C-alpha cells in the first residue's frame, strides 16, 4: 500500500499533516490515543499573540479530519508495533474498547448525566470532574462517549438510559493491521511535571499551579467558567507570580533546556489575568533570558507598558506557604540580592517534555538529548527522522508553538507525499480546494 500514509497523533501537527496529505489524494490513517482529536490545543483558552479563541480556530479542522474522504480516523487507538518489509511499513494498531458503539452514539450525553461515578478529569488538570462515561471536552471529535473501564462500576444505568442502545459492555480490544508507505510522527508533548523537580515542594501547596492548570481556569469552558480563583479557598488572587523555566535539566550539561513557548504563554496568561482582574499585581520571574523571537518583541513591550506586567530576572531559591495559604517567594536577583515577595497565587510556567510512545523502539528512531525525536535533515525543516520514510512534525520534534507546528506539519506532509510518489505507481487524485 504505497499510497497510504500513517499519521501518529491528532494534535495540531497531526491534524494539519493529515489534511495536507489527504488533500494530495493519499489515504491517511490518523491514529490518536485519546478518545478525541485536538491534543493540547483543545485545552487552551486563547492563543498568542492575537488572543484568538483556540477552539474557534481548531474545531473546524478537528471536524475536517473526521469527515475527510481520504482520512481514516482511529481514536482511542495506539500504534503498538511497526515492522519494515521492503518499502512498506506494516503497522499494528490497537483500538481500545470504548464500550460504546461509535456509530450508534449520538453524543447526547444522557448517559453521563446519570452516571453516579465522579472522577477528577485529566483534561481540566484534575480541577474539574467527569463521569465514568464521558467525553473529554464538550466539542470532542468524534462526538462519541467513552467508558473509563478503571472507574466504571458496571452498574448499567448508562445502558438503561441510552436511547440509541449504544452502550456495549461486550466490546473487546481490536488489533488493526495497516500497511503504510510513509509515517509522520506527531505525538506531541506533555507539560513538565514539577513534582519531578520538587526541591521547592511545589506539589504540596494548593495555590501553586502549573501554566496548564491556569489555562483551564482561564477557559470559559473550564471547571470554573473562566473565573480564576485560588484552589485553597476560592478567593480571587490579586498578587500573582509566574515562575519561568520550570523544566528538566539536561542530564549532560545540567543546563535547563529552553521550551521556547513559556515566556510567551506566561505573558499571554498575565494579560488575560489583567483583563479579568484589573487590579491584579503580576510579576514574572525568569532565570534564563526571555525568549528572543522578533515576532514577540512587540508583545513583551505591550505587556510591560499597556498591561503593567513586571518582569524580573531572578533565580528562585524557595517558595514557602503561609498559614493563609499565601506564598512567600524568595529569589536572588542578578546582582545577588535576596528578594522576598508575597503572592496569592504562583504559576509555574512548565516546559514541554516528550510524550512517551511505545512505538519508539519499534521504529528505532533517534532521540535527541531532550528525548524528542531527532530530525536529521540538512535543511531547516527538521522533519526527517533517522529512519527513511518516517517524518516528524510538531512538538514531538522539539518544543515549539502552534504556528511553528503547523508550518512543520505542512513541510512534513509535503516531504511525505514526495516520498510516497517516489515509491512509485502512486496513482492518486488530489482534491481541489475551492
Amino acid at each position, binding site marked *: 500500500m504505497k499510497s497510504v500514509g500513517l499519521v501518529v497523533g491528532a494534535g495540531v501537527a497531526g491534524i494539519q499533516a493529515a489534511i495536507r496529505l489527504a488533500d494530495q489524494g493519499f489515504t491517511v490513517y490518523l491514529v490518536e490515543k485519546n478518545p478525541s482529536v485536538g491534543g493540547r490545543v483543545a485545552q487552551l483558552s486563547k492563543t498568542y499573540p492575537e488572543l484568538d479563541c483556540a477552539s474557534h480556530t481548531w474545531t473546524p479542522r478537528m471536524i475536517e479530519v473526521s469527515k475527510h474522504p481520504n482520512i481514516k480516523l482511529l481514536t482511542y487507538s495506539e500504534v503498538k508495533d511497526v515492522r519494515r518489509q521492503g518499502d512498506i511499513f506494516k503497522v499494528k494498531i490497537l483500538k481500545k474498547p470504548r464500550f460504546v458503539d461509535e456509530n450508534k452514539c449520538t453524543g447526547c450525553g444522557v448517559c453521563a*448525566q*446519570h452516571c*453516579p*461515578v*465522579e472522577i477528577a478529569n485529566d483534561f481540566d488538570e484534575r*480541577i*474539574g*470532574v467527569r463521569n465514568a462515561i464521558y467525553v473529554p471536552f464538550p466539542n470532542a471529535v468524534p462526538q462519541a462517549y467513552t467508558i473509563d473501564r478503571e472507574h466504571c*462500576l*458496571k*452498574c*448499567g*444505568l448508562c*445502558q*438503561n438510559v441510552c436511547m440509541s442502545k449504544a452502550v456495549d*459492555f461486550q466490546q473487546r480490544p481490536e488489533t488493526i493491521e495497516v500497511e503504510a508507505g510513509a509515517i509522520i510522527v506527531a505525538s506531541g508533548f506533555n507539560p513538565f511535571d514539577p513534582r519531578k523537580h520538587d526541591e521547592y515542594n511545589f506539589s504540596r501547596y*494548593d495555590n501553586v499551579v502549573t501554566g496548564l492548570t491556569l489555562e483551564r481556569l482561564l477557559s470559559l469552558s473550564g*471547571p*470554573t*467558567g473562566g*473565573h480564576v*480563583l485560588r*484552589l*485553597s*479557598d*476560592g*478567593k*480571587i488572587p*490579586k498578587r500573582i507570580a509566574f515562575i519561568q523555566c520550570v523544566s528538566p535539566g539536561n542530564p549532560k550539561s545540567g543546563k535547563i533546556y529552553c521550551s521556547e513557548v513559556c515566556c510567551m504563554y506566561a505573558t499571554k496568561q498575565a494579560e488575560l489575568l489583567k483583563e479579568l482582574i484589573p487590579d491584579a499585581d503580576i510579576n514574572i520571574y525568569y532565570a534564563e533570558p526571555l525568549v528572543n523571537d522578533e515576532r514577540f518583541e512587540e508583545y513583551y513591550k505591550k505587556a510591560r507598558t499597556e498591561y503593567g506586567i513586571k518582569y524580573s530576572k531572578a533565580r528562585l531559591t524557595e517558595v514557602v506557604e503561609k498559614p493563609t495559604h499565601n506564598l512567600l517567594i524568595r529569589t536572588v536577583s542578578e546582582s545577588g540580592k535576596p528578594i522576598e515577595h508575597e503572592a496569592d497565587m504562583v504559576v509555574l510556567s512548565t516546559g514541554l517534555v516528550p510524550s512517551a510512545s511505545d512505538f519508539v523502539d519499534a521504529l528505532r528512531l533517534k532521540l535527541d538529548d531532550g528525548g524528542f525525536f531527532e530530525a536529521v535533515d540538512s535543511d531547516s525543516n527538521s522533519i526527517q527522522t533517522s529512519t527513511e520514510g518516517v517524518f516528524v512534525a510538531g512538538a514531538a520534534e522539539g518544543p515549539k508553538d502552534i504556528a511553528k507546528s503547523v508550518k512543520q506539519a505542512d513541510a512534513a506532509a509535503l516531504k511525505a507525499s514526495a516520498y510516497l510518489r517516489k515509491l512509485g505507481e502512486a496513482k492518486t487524485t488530489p482534491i481541489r480546494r475551492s
Partner: protein
Amino acid sequence: MIGGLSEKKKLAKKTDAAIEAFKTERLRWVLGISQVGPKVDEQKYKAVSSKIMKDEIDRQMIIGEIKEKGPRTIKELSEATKLNTKEVLRHIIALRKIGTISEAGEKDGGYLYKASE
C-alpha cells in the same frame, strides 16, 4: 442552654440535607446497584458508594444553605457547613457543571454562588 439550641439546629440542618441526599437519583441508584446490571466489584463499590453518600450529603448542605440565605461565598459556605474551603470549592465545581449552582457576582474577594433556576 443557647449553645445546645444552636447545636440542635445544626444537626437538624444536616439531617435535612441527608434526607434530601437520599432522595437524589444518584445516591438511590448507587444503593440499589447490586440488584441490577452486570457484575459489580464489591470492594470498588463499597469505596465509591461511601464517597458518593458523603458527597451528596455535603452538597445538599451547601444547596440548603444557599436556598435559605441567598447567594453565598465559599468562605460563608465553609463556615456554615464546617467543610474546609477546598472541599467546598470541589463541590461548587461539580454543582456548577450540572447546572445546580452558578456565579452571582463578587463579595469579600471571592465569588458569590446562587442556586440556578
